[in-house]
């Protein structure tokens, strides 16, 4: 299913970059203050370097680089403590092409077979991981509107690169916060620490090696295997059903794109809507009536499950298959689903 989330290579970042430039031009200088009633932000000298945010927006798709980075996930879940540490190589050709090659599974200790299966699965998920899991600014306007971005003036070095450290937190309803080291030259986030408001580590990523303009002639860039097309007026009739789009979105979220994704297994299309608050993403997918009820889930029932900050809601409403997933609070996701089918 991860492959179903594999993205197209659309240069949306360029348009978003122009938007950010327009926003930056409205301001008197290159930095601006962010006021907030949040205690954390009040304690800090709130200075945001907007040109750096502009770089962050376009960096993943427009900077040619390669690096080795270490991921760490430590989640306390309802069904037990889970931890995962692994190392991967990442490549970007600066023109929208990319690749992630998992290198080693460091934790947990598993058999060689489980390790190899994990690494292969990670490789198969590279499209999702690069586009959606990695820390990246999806929409500059929403990002600045929804998040408090603090530059405490701390200079850090990651993988031999000079970085600015940013503290990032949702303005309202925050349950987590980010500490990010951004490469001053390129805008690439070289270190990300996501933690609870109590300071408990949830996930972390840090580059151990990083180089610009590498030779990628021997690198096999990601080749999306899932057919995904823009869902415009001309494409809607070919879905085989009238796509239902939510009317109520999680707080601060806006639609980034609407596409249709072909399900090769069931030989049918899904309508896919992608929303973002500038940093986090929420997906809503409508699969129509094809196949009747969703396998394993009764009609008009949504099964809700979560792992760490992620929530997955899946089921069948009025005979229509529906799927929603994201890091937004579960009640807001439920209202979003409800608004798509019940008025």
């Amino acid at each position, binding site marked *: 299913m991860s492959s179903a989330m594999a993205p197209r290579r659309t240069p949306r970042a360029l348009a978003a970059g122009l938007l950010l430039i327009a926003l930056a031009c409205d301001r008197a200088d290159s930095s601006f203050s962010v006021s907030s009633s949040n205690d954390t932000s009040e304690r800090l000298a709130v200075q945001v370097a907007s040109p750096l945010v502009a770089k962050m927006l376009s960096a993943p798709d427009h900077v040619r680089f390669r690096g080795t980075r270490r991921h760490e996930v430590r989640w306390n879940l309802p069904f037990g403590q889970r931890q995962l540490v692994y190392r991967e190589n990442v490549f970007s050709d600066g023109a929208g092409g990319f690749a992630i090659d998992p290198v080693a599974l460091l934790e947990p200790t598993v058999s060689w077979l489980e390790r190899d299966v994990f690494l292969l699965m990670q490789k198969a998920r590279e499209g999702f991981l690069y586009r959606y899991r990695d820390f990246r600014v999806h929409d500059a306007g929403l990002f600045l509107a929804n998040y408090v971005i603090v530059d405490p003036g701390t200079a850090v070095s990651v993988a031999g690169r000079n970085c600015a450290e940013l503290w990032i937190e949702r303005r309202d309803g925050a349950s987590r916060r980010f500490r990010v080291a951004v490469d001053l030259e390129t805008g690439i986030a070289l270190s990300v620490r996501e933690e609870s408001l109590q300071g408990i580590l949830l996930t972390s990523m840090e580059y151990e090696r990083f180089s610009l303009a590498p030779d990628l002639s021997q690198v096999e860039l990601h080749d999306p295997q899932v057919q995904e097309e823009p869902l415009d007026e001309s494409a809607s009739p070919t879905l085989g059903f009238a796509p239902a789009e939510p009317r109520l979105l999680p707080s601060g979220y806006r639609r980034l794109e609407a596409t249709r994704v072909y399900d090769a297994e069931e030989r049918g299309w899904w309508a896919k809507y992608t929303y973002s608050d500038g940093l986090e993403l929420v997906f809503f997918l409508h699969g129509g009536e094809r196949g009747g009820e969703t396998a394993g889930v009764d009609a008009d*029932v949504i*099964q809700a*499950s979560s*792992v760490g900050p992620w929530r997955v809601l899946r089921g069948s409403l009025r005979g229509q298959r529906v799927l929603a997933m994201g890091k937004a609070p579960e009640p807001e996701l439920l209202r979003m689903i409800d608004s798509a089918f019940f008025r």
Partner: protein
Amino acid sequence: MTISCQSFRAEPPERRDAARDAAPDAAPDPAIGPGAPALEPTSEHARVCDECATWARRWKERAASLASLQRQSVPADLEGRVAATLQAGHRQARAVTAVQGLARLPLPLDLEGAVRSAAEQSVGDAEGRLLGRDRRAAPPLRAPSVLERLVREELSDLPRARARRFLGSLVRLGAPSALEPRVAHDLTRVAPARARVPRGLAWGALAAGLLAVALLPSVLREGTGGEVDVHFRVVRADTLEDLDPVSRALIDAVSGGILSAGNP
């Protein structure tokens, strides 16, 4: 033609002459039979018989003409055919020898290209059927670089890979069934040794516990965002076993594989 003419022509003239020269006193030729006149020299009968003289002269001319013809060589396979006829049991051995002696013929220059083209076409068709798409619109399938690296690592150190394979397949042994009761027994024996809690403190703890229980629902609602008024039933999966396979795969993907990396 008289009997003398018949007798004269029964022998080639040169043979008659050679026999007379070799044995002038020899007995009459037995082939002619008893009573037959003795061989007379060619020149003697021919001298009195013009017809036989002409016959003898023509005979000698034909013999000279035949003798002047070039001798033809024996066909090359004649000896083999004769031997095969005479020794039929050795045919297989001779056939093997003959095949081994054949020279290797060179391949046509365009054969390799034709075979490669046909093979690629065949593979491409198979890919197209598997992927349900036109091969001309898609690049050929390639193994992921990760798979290539894993195979390379395994091949580079086969003993280690083999050891890992067998160790990884060992079944994890469970704790003896008698262990849990014994642990429970030990724990209950320790309990009486604990210091007694003052009665006032115990009542305080009880009150605090009741208060916590009373506040728990609101705390839980706060933590999950509260109840939501929706037009469908919501079923929560609190354990991995409660998750349907699709949801589990989704969560595994969005979490970066935290469920599949050796966790149950």
